[in-house]
């Protein structure tokens, strides 16, 4: 029972006391999340927009595939990416295993279906009168495209927030591809697993609280952005 109170006290100590190992894990978590989020949005947002906006043969199958990938277990993603980036794997030459970019590759695969599916959904759920209205107002295809993009921005923000939540708190992929190496690939979540393995439950809870504080800050920023651009 005392674990929780001890954890709370320790979380404050770790953060306020500037514990270097904790800050290294926080930094690694932010770095890998940033890399994975950038890749996820750059690849996923256009793909999701296309999937919701355009009509093409095989669209339903593509939708189904994306939605199935939403339930891809993270350990399997870890395992598959491991097989590719291991020295014995086809991409072994890049030396990505046990590095932050290697983890980012796995986390990108985790985030992609979320961003694609939610972006496509957001574009499809736009007011169906939007396009005819724009057309009757004399908009060209280019203008229709950009207006739709603008209207879908909240959906995109929601997709990004959902992907962030998954990527930021992920552990299976990070453990497998990063290896939980101190000062290098140890993230907050893999550090929690290690501390729990050592039986240091209070430290584990403290790190969990640190994770929640950061997640809260990020979501607060996202919601502030939403309010400002809605006004």
């Amino acid at each position, binding site marked *: 029972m005392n674990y929780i109170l001890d954890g709370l006290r320790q979380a404050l100590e770790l953060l306020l006391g500037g514990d270097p190992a904790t800050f290294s894990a926080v930094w690694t978590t932010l770095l890998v999340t940033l*890399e994975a989020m*950038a*890749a996820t949005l*750059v*690849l996923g947002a*256009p793909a999701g927009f296309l999937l919701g906006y355009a009509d093409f043969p095989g669209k339903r199958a593509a939708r189904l595939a994306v939605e199935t990938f939403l339930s891809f277990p993270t350990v399997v993603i870890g395992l598959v990416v491991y097989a590719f980036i*291991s*020295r*014995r*794997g086809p991409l*072994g030459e*890049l*030396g*990505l*295993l*046990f*590095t*932050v*970019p*290697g983890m*980012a*590759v796995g986390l990108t695969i985790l985030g992609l279906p979320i961003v694609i599916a939610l972006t496509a959904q957001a574009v499809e759920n736009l007011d169906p009168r939007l396009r005819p209205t724009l057309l009757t107002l004399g908009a060209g295809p280019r203008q229709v495209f950009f207006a739709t993009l603008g209207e879908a921005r909240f959906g995109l923000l929601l997709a990004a927030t959902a992907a962030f939540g998954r990527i930021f708190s992920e552990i299976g992929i990070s453990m497998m591809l990063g*290896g*939980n*190496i*101190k000062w*290098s690939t140890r993230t907050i979540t893999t550090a929690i697993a*290690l501390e*729990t*393995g*050592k*039986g*240091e439950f209070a430290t584990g809870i403290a790190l969990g609280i640190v994770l929640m504080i950061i997640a809260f800050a990020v979501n607060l920023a996202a919601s502030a952005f939403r309010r400002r651009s809605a006004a």
Partner: protein
Amino acid sequence: MRATMLGRLILALALSLVVSGSALAAGETLMMATTTSTDDTGLLPVLGEAFKKDTGIELKWVAVGTGKALEHGKNCDVDVLLVHAPAAEKKFVEDGNGTKRTEVMFNDFIIVGPASDPAKIKGKKAGEALAAIAAAKAPFISRGDDSGTHKMEQSLWKGAEIALPDKESWYVSAGQGMMATLNMAGERKGYTLVDRGTYISYEDQAKGKPALVVLVEGDKPLLNQYSVIPVNPAKCEKVKIKQAQIFSDWLASPKGQKVVGDFTVKGKKLFTPNAAK
């Protein structure tokens, strides 16, 4: 216009991935795969620091079960191994995956269980104790994760000439780390096999009232030998064999052996250095 910008972004991202990946690989570092027991006890950070001071080489490690550690070695993903499963290690070297196996230290396993000891195993030899547990159908929690500890447990059942009671309802295969397994045994009032280091941490955290106590210890089959194996450059050309060999030699040298021997957890010695002189 848009498409080229996107293309450039992707290219830049891919480039940065490659660059930062190879930047990490450069420099005097040594990548080791080892077992959770060495990391959980805190020996590795001490060892890594002393090694860097003496040789300037930075030791990095991934702590996994012995089975996975050997697999990392086979896949050329690490330079050196520090593991404790002699039979599997010998096979690893015979198959040409490692250059040479150097024994460096040992610690010991103990069998722990509830103080009430329903199967009456206290003070028995390891094999007799397991037979008594099986006869009493008392709960036994197994690591079940192909770790060195799990392999040791399997060899003890074999030594006691009891078929692995995998399907019995009293035999619980946890599939988790040592501390999680200990906690499970504590909650279920069961027996388990544990390395002394993890048990000392467990006992310390229980603040004087551990749910599990030491019942069997000191029997010869319970000794746990650790060895260092550099990964074979003949199979893995990228492996840093020079640094791996330096580590192996250093750990077996008086300097490295002293670090191992002086290491304590909560004031208790855990590992006994035993490299051949």
